[in-house]
């Protein structure tokens, strides 16, 4: 399967591990990612705060470049253009994914805005027709295009015994500018992926809550409290590792974990890895190829648990049916997805 690939600035350096592991895993799964040539920064959350038209134009340039580069080539002139599939653009970073999909959607919904953005793009000889690309997040492509079955078939070293807290953060599941591939409040695709890899997925109620984004740079008071909530919740469910799909989330939870511990007198020691790194490990790839070791909170002690039973002294039984003799408890509501587990 062919995809345009938009790595974004973070994956070039601070989340280089995400890029490396993505490429390694894509190779195993037969996903062909071709980088958008000469792409620029997506603007993160900063441009929209200062300059609206520049924010749209900045992302507009990326869309225009990608649409041009990946436009379906009319190999057979008899095939009408509509029959060709819309080229797909994959972004592993949540903020890039949000900006690319948001700009495409907004340009489609407002011809007035599209005209303005194209006037700006015209200054660089570019043009973009909204809808020319389908923007997707890497997780969506991995679980829905490659598929759980193909992933399961390539697992060589199951992550048995590793207790994983799947962390989605915000922008992949919300607000779904190009349709939602998972629930915006209580997503489950990453949970299922981790189970397919053999890991023990712990309940993590805050899995779609916010890591604070750029607040670590602006207001430590706000950011460290948000991070503390997440780390506390993951620790309570006795996770060995937090798995994430966004460079910003990884950076905040990993790099600022010691600051959280200092501020609140806690002793969290939760390594934070990208889901592609754990996929690579399960596929039997060498940790070095996956960028493991670049995290601030070392993951090796946690990863050493792979292959163990993964049992913990006492499972936190929140909201779970307690099975006792003389059980007088009332039945829990029927949940369709329980069947799957």
């Amino acid at each position, binding site marked *: 399967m062919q995809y345009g690939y938009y790595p974004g600035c973070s994956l070039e350096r601070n989340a280089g591990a995400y890029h490396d592991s993505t490429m390694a895993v894509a190779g195993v799964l037969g996903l062909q990612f071709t980088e958008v040539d000469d792409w*620029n920064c997506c603007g*993160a959350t900063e441009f929209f705060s200062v300059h609206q038209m520049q924010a749209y*134009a900045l992302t507009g340039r990326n869309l225009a470049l990608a649409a041009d580069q990946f436009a379906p080539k009319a190999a057979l002139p008899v095939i009408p253009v509509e029959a060709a599939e819309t080229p797909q653009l994959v972004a592993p970073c949540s903020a890039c994914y949000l900006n690319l999909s948001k700009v495409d959607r907004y340009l489609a919904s407002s011809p007035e*805005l599209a005209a303005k953005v194209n006037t*700006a793009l015209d200054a*660089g000889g570019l043009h973009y027709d909204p809808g020319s690309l389908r923007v997707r997040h890497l997780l969506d492509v991995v679980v829905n295009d490659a598929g759980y079955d193909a992933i399961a078939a390539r697992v060589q070293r199951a992550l048995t015994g590793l207790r994983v807290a799947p962390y989605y953060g915000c922008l992949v599941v919300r607000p779904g500018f190009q349709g939602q591939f998972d629930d915006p409040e209580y997503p489950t695709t990453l949970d299922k992926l981790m189970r397919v890899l053999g890991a023990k997925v712990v309940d993590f109620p805050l899995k779609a809550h916010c890591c604070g984004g*750029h607040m670590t740079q602006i207001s430590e008071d706000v950011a460290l409290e*948000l991070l503390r909530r997440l780390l506390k919740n993951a620790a309570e469910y006795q996770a060995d590792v937090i798995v994430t799909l966004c460079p910003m989330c990884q950076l905040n939870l990993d790099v600022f974990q010691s600051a959280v511990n200092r501020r609140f007198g806690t002793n969290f020691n939760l390594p934070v890895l990208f889901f592609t790194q754990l996929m690579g490990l399960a596929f039997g790839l060498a940790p070095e190829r996956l960028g493991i070791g670049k995290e601030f909170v070392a993951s090796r002690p946690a990863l050493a648990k792979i292959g163990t039973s993964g049992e913990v002294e006492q499972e936190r039984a929140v909201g779970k049916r307690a099975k006792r003799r003389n059980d007088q408890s009332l039945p829990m509501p029927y949940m369709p997805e329980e069947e799957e587990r």
Partner: protein
Amino acid sequence: MSASKKPARGSVFFHEVVGATAVDPHLEACLQCGTCGGSCPSGNDMEHTPRTLFAMIAAGMRETVLRSNTPWYCVSCYYCTERCPQEVHITDVMYTLKRLAIKEGFSRQSSAAQAPAFSETFMEHVERYGRSFELGLITRYFLRHRPLDTVKIAPIGAGMLRRKRFDLTPRKIRQIDQLQAILARADELERSP
């Protein structure tokens, strides 16, 4: 640009906010239910909840709204937008309020004084190189705007460098001239809509 489709009712400021938002945020539909304020992860740190701001926008309290720290504490998590029962594009309104506050020079007086500086420093790098330059961003932002905090952030920078997670020099895109021309045209369009 979306205001033209609707009847001109409500405060002048209300129309200013709606007009400065690229896609109609449906702000007039607000029921004042508080779902946004309840959902906000940094709601406790805000001077006003988003809902309160919307009521103040409707009441035309321009200066109070633009001086509020609320938009600067928005972390763009989109919980409010996702949950809003009236489909108000709350996050987009927060971006609009930040822009209007910068334009008026109000933002630096709010208790989130650092936020615009961070955004602007980030943008400077992108405008110059086409991509963000993390080491440069952090160094310049802290040295220029928070010199006293530089000591705090230094170990993190060192750690990032040691783990090869920071570039020492910026990466420049090939067609930086093209990008700058586009951004310059966008700037003109913003100034003379």
